C-alpha cells in the first residue's frame, strides 16, 4: 500500500480546492498578468485530474514566485532561479507526484538559465511556466533577459543595449518536448495549453506573457493576440522541428514589433521522459524511492555486504 494515498486518488475535483482558504489576498498589483496564470492553472487542474495533495508547485523568486502562496497544493517557494533543480529532484524522488515549476523571465531565462537548458535537455516530466513580463517586476523595473532592446530603467538610463533572448528557440534547442506561448489576456487558450502541458509526458515549457502595468506601463497588455493555430496566416507542423524553429523565430521577433503570436509551437510525443530514460539504464527504481522509507518491512542493504571488496 502506498504511503502517499493522495496520489492517484480518483474523485471529482473542484477548481475551488486550489484556492487557499485563509491566505490573504494576492499582493500582485491590480491588472497584473500574474492573476491570469493563477486562474488558468486552477482551471487546468480539474481537467488533468490531479488534487492539491498530490501536486507539488515549486516557484522561484519574483512577483511570479508568489504563485505558490496563492495556489493551494504542496508548495515550495525556493530561491531566485532555482525552482527547476528543486522540482526535478522531487520528481525523481517520487515520479508519481504532479510536479509544476514556475517563475519569472529573469528567474528562468537569466539567473536560472543554466538550469532551464539542462532541465529541457534531460526532458524531465514536468511543466515549467515562465511568467514573461519582459521586466524584473519585484525589484522595480530593471531590464530582464526578455526586455526589448532600448528598454529604459534606472539601471539602463540610456536604454538597454542588449537584444532579448529567444525563449522558445532556446527551449527547442535545449531539448524540451512541448513548447508553447500563451498570454494572460487569453484565459481560454491559457487553460487549454496548461492542461496539455501538464498532461504531456516530458518537459513542457510554457512562456506565459503576463503584462506588468506597474513597470511596463507603455508596454502592451498583449492585445490583440493571434493564436497561430487558429489563424490562416500561419501554417506549420508542430511536430516538425525545422518548421517549429522558423515559427518560433518569427514569433519572438514579432513580439517586439507589436504582434503578439501565441499557441503551440512544438510537440514531440515520442521523446521518452527522463524518468523513462533513467529507468531504462537501471539508474532509477521502478517503485518511487520515497515509498520505501514508509515500508516497515523493507529490507535495507548494508555496507557490510560490500566488505568482501576490501579484504
Amino acid at each position, binding site marked *: 500500500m502506498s*504511503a*502517499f*494515498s*493522495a496520489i492517484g486518488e480518483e474523485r471529482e475535483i473542484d477548481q475551488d480546492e486550489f484556492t*487557499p*482558504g*485563509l*491566505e*490573504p489576498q494576492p499582493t500582485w498589483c491590480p491588472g497584473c498578468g500574474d492573476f491570469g496564470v493563477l486562474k488558468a492553472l486552477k482551471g487546468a487542474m480539474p481537467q488533468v485530474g490531479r488534487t492539491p*495533495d*498530490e501536486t*507539488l508547485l*515549486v516557484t522561484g*523568486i519574483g512577483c511570479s514566485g*508568489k504563485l*505558490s*502562496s496563492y495556489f*493551494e*497544493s*504542496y*508548495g*515550495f*517557494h*525556493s*530561491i531566485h532561479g*532555482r525552482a527547476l*533543480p*528543486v*522540482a*526535478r*529532484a*522531487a*520528481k*525523481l*524522488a*517520487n515520479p*508519481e*507526484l504532479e510536479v509544476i515549476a514556475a517563475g519569472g523571465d529573469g528567474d528562468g531565462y537569466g539567473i536560472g538559465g*543554466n*538550469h532551464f537548458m*539542462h532541465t529541457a535537455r534531460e526532458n524531465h516530466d514536468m511543466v515549467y511556466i515562465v511568467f514573461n513580463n519582459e521586466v524584473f517586476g519585484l525589484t522595480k523595473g530593471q531590464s530582464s533577459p526578455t526586455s526589448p532592446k532600448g528598454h529604459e530603467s534606472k539601471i539602463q538610463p540610456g536604454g538597454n543595449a542588449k537584444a532579448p533572448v529567444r525563449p522558445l528557440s532556446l527551449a527547442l534547442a535545449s531539448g524540451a518536448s512541448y513548447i508553447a506561448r500563451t498570454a494572460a489576456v487569453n484565459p481560454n487558450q491559457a487553460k487549454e495549453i496548461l492542461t496539455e502541458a501538464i498532461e504531456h509526458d516530458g518537459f513542457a515549457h510554457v512562456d506565459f506573457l503576463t503584462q506588468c502595468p506597474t513597470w511596463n506601463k507603455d508596454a502592451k497588455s498583449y492585445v490583440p493576440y493571434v493564436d497561430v493555430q487558429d489563424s490562416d496566416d500561419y501554417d506549420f507542423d508542430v511536430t516538425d522541428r525545422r518548421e517549429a524553429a522558423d515559427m518560433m523565430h518569427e514569433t519572438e521577433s514579432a513580439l517586439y514589433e507589436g504582434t503578439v503570436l501565441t499557441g503551440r509551437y512544438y510537440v514531440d510525443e515520442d521523446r521518452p521522459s527522463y524518468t523513462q530514460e533513467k529507468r531504462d539504464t*537501471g*539508474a*532509477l*527504481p521502478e*517503485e518511487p*524511492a*520515497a515509498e*520505501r*522509507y*514508509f515500508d516497515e518491512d523493507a529490507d*535495507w*542493504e*548494508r*555496507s*557490510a555486504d*560490500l*566488505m568482501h571488496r*576490501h*579484504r
Partner: protein
Amino acid sequence: MSDELIWRIAGGSGDGADSTSKNFARALMRSGLHVFTHQHYPSRIRGGHMYVEVRAAPEPVKSRGDGYNFLVALGDSFARNPQEGAYYGDEEIKPLAENLDELREGGVIIYDTGLFDEEDVEEVGLHERAEENDWHVYGIDLRGTAREHGREVMRNTAGVGATAALLGADLDPFEEIMREGMRGDVLEANLQVLTDAYESAADLEFTHDLSFPEGGHDEQQVMVSGSHAVAYGALDSGCRFISGYPMTPWTDVFTIMSQNLPDVGGISEQVEDEIAAASLAVGASHAGVKAMSGSSGGGFALMSEPLGMAEMTETPLVLVEAQRAGPSTGMPTKTEQADLEHVLYTSQGDSNRVVLAPGNVREAYEQSRISFDVAYDYQIPTILLYDQKLGAENRTVPESFFDREPSPDLGSTLTEEELAEAAHDASGKFHRFQYDPENGVSPRSIPGQKGGRYLASGNEHTQSGHITEDPDLRVAQVDRRLRKLESIREDLNGRDLQTYYGEEDAEYGIVSWGSQQDTVEEAVDRLLAAGHSVQAVGVSQIMPFPREEMAGFIEGVEEAMVVEMNATGQFRGHIQRELGRYGDKLTSLLKYNGNPFEPAEIVEGFEAQHDGDASAAPETTRTEPAAGD
C-alpha cells in the same frame, strides 16, 4: 615503530602506481600487517610526478610516518615522449631524484635500469648520497621485464616483485590479489612479470637489513579509505539520492555512491553545477528520499544559497565538503583545512547548521551516519567536513566494524495516520512550522501524503508556511530554529565525538580538529616517551561546539597548542569565538604547504614552543605565539 616498512612507489602520474600501491597494501594486509596509505599527487591526469606511501606494521598504523625506508623509483614514462622533452626536461628521473631527501638512513632503493643508465644516476649523485646515508641501492631492469612479458606499464608489477624479493616476502598474497582483479592475458603477463622480477632481484647480493615485518591479525581486516567510509556511512543511513558536480577531492565520494546506488534502489545525478547539485538534494529530501550532495571549496561556495534555503525551509540535508588547498582553484590535489570558516559562516543571515569533522577512517563512517541522524531528526543541514588527506588515505579496519544495522528512518516525519491527528489551518494546510515544539523541531509531511499540504518557503513564514513579516512571528521562528542547535548540542555531547589521547591531567594540551587527529596521537606517544606531560584532544564536533567540554580541557592545562593545516589558525579562532576567552592559553602550529603533518613536525613544533623558541620549529610549519601576549 622500528619494525615497520614505509614503502614509497614513485612514478609519473597516470602510470598506474596508484592502483599498484593499493594492491600492494592489500597484500600486506593479507600477510597479517596493518597498513596506512598516503598519496601525493600533482594536479594533472598524466605527467608530473606522484608517489604513494604504504606504511605497514604489526600494530595498527595511524598516520604517515616521518620519511620512509623503501623506494621504488619507476621513472616517468610520460616524460619519455620526445615531443614533451621541451616541457619536461629531466622529468624522467625525478621520481628517483626528488624522493631522496625523505629517505631514512639505512633505506633501500630500487631504480629501473631499463630507464636510467649509470650516467643518469650519477648526475643526481645517487651513489655518493647512498654512501653518506647508508642507503642500499639496487638497479633492476623493471621496464625490460615488463616489456618481455607484457606491456610497459607492468613496470609497477615488476617493482612489486622486486620489493617482495628484497624483503624476503612470500609472493602468494600478491599473486592472489592479482588473480582476483585481473583476467586472461593481462593476468598471465602480470604474473610472469611479478615472478620474473622477483627472481632477478632474489639473485642479487643483499646488503640491507630491512626485512618484511611479521604480523598476524586476530580477526578479518579490510582496507578502507576515508571516502569509502563516508559513502558507506551514507548508504547505511538509508541515503538513496546524491547529486553533484565533479571536483577533486570530493569526486571520490560522489563516484563511490554513484557506483553503488543503482544496486540499492538509489539515484545519482551529475548535474550542471553545484548550485543545482545542492538544490536537487534539497528537492529530493523534501520529497521524502534521504539525500546528500557535496563538493570541495569552490563548489561549496556555489552551494551557499541553497544551503540557506535548506536552513530556512528546514529541509534535512547532508553535504560533504572535502577540503583542498585554496583559495580559488588553489592546489587541487593538495590537502588543507582552510575551509572551516567558509563552511561555518557562509550564509544569508545567521547560519543554522551542524558541522562535523571526522578524525580518521572509522570516524568518517560513524560521523557520516551521525550526520544523517542529526539532519533528519532535527531538519537541519549537516556538513561533514573532511579533506584530501582523509579522503584518500586507506587504512586497515576490522571487518566487524561495519557489521551494523542500517538506519533508514526519516526522522521527524509524520505518516498519514499521524497527519490526520496533527494541527491544520481551517483551510486544510498542515502546521508544518509550529512556533513552540519542545526541542525546536516541528515534524514534517511529505508531498503526496493526504492531509500534509503546506508551503515550504525561503521567505520567513507562518506555521503553515505562508510568507510573513510580522515581527513577533519572525522572532518566534528564528528562536525556534536556533533552539534546534541547542538540542543538537546536548544530543552530540552524549556521543563522545572528541577523542582524547595521552596523559590525563597533563600539563600541556594539543588540540586538533578533523584529519590531523591520529598524526597528533603518534606525536603524543613520542612526546610522552621524551618525558613531556601532554594530552591531545581531536575535536569532531565543530558546530554546535562542545563548549563546556572544551573549556574544561583548556582549564585543565597550562597551555594548549592548536594544530591545523591552514595559515590563519581558523580553528584556534573558532575556539576563542565559541568560548569567549582563553586567548592567552592557546598557541598555533600551522602547516599549509599542501602536505599533511608528519608526526615529527608536531613533536618539533611542540618542543619549539615549549622551549619558547618558535624559530626552532620545522621549516614547513609556522608557530604562532599566544594571542594574549
